[in-house]
C-alpha cells in the first residue's frame, strides 16, 4: 500500500508537513501524526460531524476528506480555539448553556458554530438549526446547543472573544 507522499500545509497557524498515503483521511493524519484528537471518527460517513475540520475557512468532514488534498491548504482544528487561560466565546457559551453531555460530538458543533457566526453574526433559531443539521448529538443536547449558539452570538457581537487571535 505504500505510496507515501509528503504534503505541506498550515495547521493551526503553523507551517507543517506530513507523510501521507493516498487513502489516508484528515482524521487519521491529524491523530496519527499531530496527536490532535479533537476531530474524531464516529459514523465514518460524513453524517455526524464529529470529525469536523476547517479547511481554507470551510468546515469539512475529516473522515471523508483525503489528507493529500490538504496539500497547500490552511487547516484549523478545535485545538486552535483556546489558549492556556482562555476559551473561545463559543466554547464558553457551550459550557454556560450545558450544551453537551458525553462531549464526543462537541468539537464538531463548536467549529460549525464558529463558521455559522462568521457568516451570520445574529442567526435566528431556524438558521441555527439549518446550519447545524449536519451535526448529530446522540445525547440530544440540541435545545441547549441552540441556546449556546445564541449566547455565543451575543458574546461575539459584544467583542467578548475569550482567546483573541485564534480566529478560524
Amino acid at each position: 500500500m505504500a505510496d507515501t507522499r509528503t504534503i505541506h500545509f498550515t495547521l493551526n497557524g503553523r507551517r507543517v508537513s506530513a507523510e501521507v498515503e493516498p487513502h489516508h483521511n484528515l482524521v487519521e493524519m491529524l491523530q496519527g501524526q499531530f496527536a490532535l484528537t479533537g476531530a474524531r471518527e464516529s459514523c465514518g460517513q460524513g453524517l455526524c460531524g464529529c470529525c469536523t475540520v476547517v479547511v481554507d475557512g470551510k468546515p469539512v468532514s475529516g473522515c471523508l476528506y483525503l489528507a493529500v488534498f490538504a496539500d497547500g491548504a490552511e487547516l484549523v482544528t478545535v485545538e486552535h480555539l483556546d489558549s492556556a487561560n482562555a476559551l473561545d466565546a463559543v466554547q464558553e457559551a457551550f459550557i454556560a448553556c450545558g450544551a453537551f453531555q458525553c462531549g464526543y460530538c462537541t468539537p464538531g458543533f463548536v467549529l460549525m458554530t464558529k463558521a455559522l457566526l462568521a457568516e451570520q453574526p445574529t442567526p435566528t433559531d431556524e438558521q441555527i438549526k439549518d446550519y447545524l443539521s449536519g451535526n448529530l448529538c446522540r445525547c440530544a443536547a440540541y435545545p441547549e446547543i441552540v441556546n449556546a449558539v445564541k449566547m455565543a452570538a451575543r458574546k461575539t457581537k459584544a467583542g467578548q472573544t475569550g482567546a483573541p487571535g485564534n480566529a478560524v
Partner: protein
Amino acid sequence: MTAPVTGKQIGRSLPRLEARAKVSGRAEYTHIMRLPGMLTCKLFRSTVAHGRIKSIDVSAARALPGVFGVYTGEDIKKVIPDPYYGPAFHDQPILALNKVHYVGEPVAAVLADDPHVADQAVQLIAAEYEELPAVFDEVEAAENKVVVHDELKPATTFADLKHLKGAKNTNCALDFKLRRGDVDKAFAAAAQVFEHTFKTQKVLHLAFEPHASIADYKDDGVTITTASQGPSFVRTEIARLLGWPENRVRIKVPYLGAGYGGKLYIKLEALALALSMLSRRPVKVALTMDEVFYTITKHPSTFRIKTGVDNNGKIIARKCDVWWNGGAYADIGPRVTQKSGFTASGPYDVDNVSIDSYALYTNLSPAGALRGFGIPQLVWAYESHTDMIARALKRDPLDFRRQNLLRDGRPHATGTILKDAAIEKVLDAITDRLDWERPFDRGTGTIRRGRGFAIGLKAVISPTTSVAIVNVAGDGSVTVYCGTIDMGQGSDTAMAQIVGEVLNMAAETVRIVPRDTDVTPYDMGTLGSRSLFHMGHAVRLAAEEAKAKLAALAREVGEPEGSNAPIAELFVKKFGMRAGNIVGTGTYKPDYIPPDPQTGQTANATPFWMTAGSGAEVEIDTETGQLRVTRLINIADVGTPINPKIVETQLSGGALMQLGFTLFEKMHIDGGQVTNASLADYKIPGIHDVPAVMENEAVAAYQSNGPFGAKGVGELATFGVSPAIANAIDDAVGIRLTELPLTAEALFRALRAKQGKPLEDE
C-alpha cells in the same frame, strides 16, 4: 469564570467539571487513544445467522505483507482455554467456536500495524459454514423448535439462573414468575376483560464513540484501557478468564463517548486481551459504527397484557406475558427479564397480578440494557393498554388512571410497599401542563391534532454495592476515587457536589480521579440510574469519615472545639511541615430481600422507586400519515436535584432519544442480516426532530433514604414518550398502533384501512 462557591453545594447548577476538556477537544476517550507499539485489530464476521463452522481459510490474509497475525477461536483457546464470557451466562466465545450464532459474530481477527492492511486482510479470509435453521422472533423462539445453543451455561453469579445449568433443547435463559392474589378468579368475576399485544423493534444505543478496548498484556499483569461502564466487572471477568487474582488486572476507563447501557459488563475486553497475549504486543480493538450494529442492541419485545375491571372501573386483575428477544448471547438479558419484568403490571393498584417474563435466545445480535433496562418496552405496552381500556369504558384516561393509581403506602405487585414515589405529582404535572380539563382543538379536514400522556414506574435494581475513597491532601485539597463512569450524565460533578457539601468546600475544587481499578475501589457498574443513589451514598460516607478524622486531627493538635482553622494548618501542626493524608472510605449496599422464586413476592424489592411520565401533542396529516410531535412534556421524580441544570439536560436528552425509538429508529433485518447498519440508513434524532415545544420538570420530591434526598435520573424521561405519542395519535384520528416505531407509513396504512381502502402489503 466565577469564583468557587463554598457553602451549599447541593442544588447548584454547576457546569460539568470536565466541561473545558470537552469543548476544547482534549477530553480522552479510548477510541482515540493509542499506545506505542500498538497493533490494530480488524474482525472477520459471520455471514450466516446459524451454522457449524466447516473451515476458516486465513492463508491469503496471513500472507499479505504487513499482517502481523490472523487468529481464529481455536487460536484463542491456546491462551485462554475456556474462552467464554458474559455477566449472566458464560455463553459468548471470544471468537466463534464450532458454531456461529448470528450474522456479524466475530469469527477471525487480523492484527497489523496499519489498520488499512488489517482491513484488506479481512477481505481475504474465507469461511465455510453448514447452515442450520435459525430463529429470529422471540415468541417463536419460546417454542424451542429451533434451538440456538446446544446447552445453557449460566454464570455462578445469580442464584435464580443456577437451575438452568446444562439445560438442553431450550432457548429460555430465564423464566421469571410473579403471582399475587388469584388472577383467574378475578378475571372470572370481572365485568369486562381487555387483552392486547404490543411489540417493540430492534434498536441500538449508537453511542458516538464506538466500542473500543486496548489491552497491554505482560506476564506479571495486564492493563486494559476500555470504553466501559463497569470496570470492576471487567476486572473480575478478565481475572476469571486468566485464572489470576484481580490485583494483576488493571482496568482504566477515560471519559466515555456515551454508553446508554451499550458499554456495560464485558464487550471487546476479552478479545483485546487474548490478542495481546498471542501477539505479545499492545492491541487495540476499536469498532467502526457499522460493527456496533452487530455488537449490542436493545431487546425487541412482545408483551401480551390482559386486564379485568369491575363495574366501577376498578382494575381487579392483570396478566402480563412478556417475551424478550435477547439475541444469540444472553448478556444482561436475564436481569432485564426479571428486574424489569416484575414491574410489568405498571403503576396501578391491582390485587390480582400474574407476570411471566421470558428471556429468549434468538439468532440475532445480542441485546442488553438500553436506558431503562427494559422499562420503556413495558411502559409502551401497559400505558397504551391502559388508555385503550379507558376509551373502551368511555372513561377519561386521567380519571381512570387516578382511580387505579398505586399510591405510597400501598403494596406493589411484588408485595413491597410503595414509598417515596411521586407518581401522583408526576401525573398532575403532566396533565396540568397539558391543560387536560380544557377543550382541545383537534383540527379539521386533513390536519388532525391529538394529545396523550403516559406514566411509568421502575424499581432500581438491587442489591448492588458501591465503594468510594475521599483523600484529603496536606494542603487541604480533596481527591475522590469512585468507579462511577462519567459518560455524559454528569456523575463526576454530582459526586463532587456531594463531597463538597459534606466537607463545606466548593465542588469545582474537588478532583475525581479517572477510573483505574489499581486505585479506584469497587463499584457494581454505571447502570440503571443507580449511581447517584449508591455511589452518592458511598462518597457521602467517605467524606463524612474524612470529616470526622479531620475533626479528630484538630483536637489532637490542640484546636479548640468549633475552630475553623484551615485544613493545611492542621497538617503542618501535626507533621511539622506540609505532609500526610487523611483518607475516608465509604461502602454502600442497601437492604434487599430476594423475591420468592415461585411467586416473585418480597417485602423489599428495591431501595428506591423511579417514576416519570410524558405528555405529547401531535399533528397528523391524514393524507400522508405524516406525524409531527408539536409538544413534548417530560416530568420525573428525581428526589432532590443535586444539579438542576444537568437534571434537565438528562430529562430532555433521554426523552429525545426515546422519541427516535418511537418515531423512526429500527434495525431492518432480513434473514438475520441488518440491512441498514449505518447512520446513512438508520436515522437518529437530529436538530430538526426536536419538538417545537419541549418542557422538562423534576417535581418537588425527596427520597428519604437517598443521599441528600436524591435518586437516579438518567433513564426516567424514556419511560412515557412512546405510549404518550401513541395515545395522542388515537386521540387525533382514532387509530391505535401497537407496534413501534410509529412511522408515517404505519399510520398511513392504518388510516387507509380505517377508510376501507387498505394498501397492498409491501
